[in-house]
């Protein structure tokens, strides 16, 4: 496997106002604050975090909806941000996105055919659009007559399936899935997830799967990255992540998931009781941003932002417990 997408020190700050009337001293929200990760060909990287942690901003920046404040991103060796807003078409077609709410991401005035034809028109003018539309619908297990329907005629699940088909239209190598099932009921969720998994196998697609549902993540992703207030605090392979979560926030997150069986309760490795409020992203605490809620907080955490520590290949966490020569074992025994 090789790196399909490589993101390095990506930053996205938003200016939301000014402290004085002259426009000096801007107030910024550091939505994404220096994150680095890679996505391999055919792999699913899960990006997990709570609201305001910068998951969606990361996605939108990579897909080109936002211009990054700083940082690099390469897809197949090509710089995504080289030309500013004018990203070449050949690069655009490689990365597609499926949004959270299919109700608002499909144009209500267009038929499904029109919706699916737009990316074909732009990126693959050589194909026969009608046959290609039929093929796309077949790919996602919908009958061809859906072409002539409007989004309001479809259920929420079907709308999201259309959004997936639209993303497939450009034959991308990476699809960003921004909470693709969180607007849907559980009984519908499974169908879409299994469709996505099948498409991944068929086309060797890579997914950047954004969600706040760790139970779902467990079943779809190969690797996970946990975000908290604009920063990645832990990255690990799926199996390892659930067996040996290192960062205190990760442990808190895992402990907080309501589960439906005793077996799953046992699968939670460490119990960390959730305390405190998530700080506002406008006013991120100094040092480690998690120190206000961390059960293992030390003095250094309040001043110095920790660096990533590598445990095994692919397993990293950003916490002073590991950089300061503490015994990593102490953390698992609360």
């Amino acid at each position, binding site marked *: 496997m090789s790196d399909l997408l490589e993101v390095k020190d990506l930053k996205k700050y938003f200016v939301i106002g000014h402290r004085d009337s002259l426009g000096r001293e801007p107030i910024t929200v550091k939505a994404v604050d220096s994150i680095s990760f890679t996505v391999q060909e055919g792999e699913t990287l899960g990006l997990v975090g709570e609201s305001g942690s910068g998951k969606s901003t990361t996605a939108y920046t990579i897909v080109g909806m936002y211009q990054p404040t700083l940082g690099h991103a390469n897809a197949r060796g090509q710089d995504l941000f080289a030309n500013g807003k004018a990203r070449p078409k050949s690069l655009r077609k490689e990365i597609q996105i499926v949004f959270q709410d299919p109700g608002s991401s499909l144009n209500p005035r267009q038929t499904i055919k029109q919706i699916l034809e737009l990316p074909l028109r732009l990126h693959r003018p050589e194909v026969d659009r009608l046959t290609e539309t039929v093929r796309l619908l077949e790919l996602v297990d919908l009958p061809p007559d859906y072409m002539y329907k409007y989004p309001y005629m479809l259920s929420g699940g079907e709308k999201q399936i259309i959004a997936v088909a639209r993303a497939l239209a450009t034959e991308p190598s990476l699809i960003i899935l921004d909470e693709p099932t969180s607007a849907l*009921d559980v009984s519908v969720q*499974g169908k879409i997830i*299994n469709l996505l998994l099948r498409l991944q196998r068929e086309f060797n697609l890579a997914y950047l799967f954004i969600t706040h549902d760790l139970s779902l993540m467990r079943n779809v992703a190969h690797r996970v990255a946990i975000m908290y207030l604009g920063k990645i605090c832990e990255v690990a392979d799926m199996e390892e992540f659930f067996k040996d979560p290192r960062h205190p926030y990760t442990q808190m997150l895992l402990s*907080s998931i309501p589960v439906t*069986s005793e077996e799953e309760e046992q699968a939670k490795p460490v119990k960390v009781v*959730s305390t405190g*409020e998530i700080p506002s992203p406008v006013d991120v605490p100094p040092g480690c941003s998690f120190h206000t809620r961390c059960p293992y907080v030390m003095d250094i955490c309040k001043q110095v932002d920790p660096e990533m520590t590598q445990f095994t290949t692919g397993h990293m966490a950003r916490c002073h417990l590991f950089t300061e020569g503490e015994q990593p074992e102490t953390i698992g025994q609360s």
Partner: protein
Amino acid sequence: MSTMPLLDIRNLHVQFDVFGGRLRVLDGVNLAVRAGEKVGLVGETGAGKTTTMKAVLRVLPQPPARIPEGEIFFEGQDVLKLSHRKIMNVRGQGISMIFQDPTAALNPVFSIGAQMGAVIRHSLPDNQRLSKRDLRERSVIPLKEVALADPERLLDSFPLQLSGGMRQRVCIAMALATSPKLLIADEPGTSLDVTIEDQVLRLLHDLVEKRNTAVVLITHSLGVVRETTDRVAVMYAGNIVEEAPTAKLFASPLHPYTQGLMAAVPKLTGGGVSDGIPGRMPTYLNPPTGCRFHPRCPHVMDICKSEKPPHYQVGDGHRVACFLHEGHAATGENVTTQAGGEVENL
């Protein structure tokens, strides 16, 4: 049953008159909640969970809503027949409610103190008046109980100054300020983040445990129900399809819908995701005849299409509305079949 239940919903039907016709939403809901009991009401979007509880508080606007049949007994009196004045006493002291979205539940233009004060004034006997200072002192107490820092200052804050978790705590404080006997919690954690939801639910659990308040927890999350309730009722398309003690329901779900729902929840232990339940929830304008689940049911039989299944008692406190379990039913304490709703409109 030895003691009279605190809340007893019997054969409740709720319909809505809309432009295209009549939505027959609730179709004979039966649910009893005893004092101090924690009952979970689970179901997907549009199953009628919130409608049921809104009917209990009588906050459904009529019209368009109408309640053609059914009784709702709260402490022995039928809520549906009470005068406006009496129902105002039930709300607050008798039953209070926490809503899903605390941002929408709090009025943005009044301070927390003003809103809390209004709740406390409402709970006073008619002739009692409180001075401003007394009212303020009384308003602080519930805020302290929900572990909010600096409650004095909070009284002068406005909802927009608080985080989502804090707003929900304020709503919980308001709901419990009048010491109700029954608390209806409508998806209290859904709009919050996982770690914050966990905190809020634990807090709520501790508070109601301490006061021995009965709770109806409306939610779509089976995980939340498993961790916080004694008994669960599963709703589908306006019916309660299965009801059982929590541990029992999770150990042996009997209704095909409950089974499908449980299989559809992704597991933390992995093992892939099931495809879920085929099809979608029917529209209430023209619901399926017989069992409303039959078009999606993997075990559908002929009888399911024409007759509505009664509730079969299959074990201690475990009842299920499915013909598959007709044979297993213990001595028929069946709740009467009410197929009328559909049959007359064929």
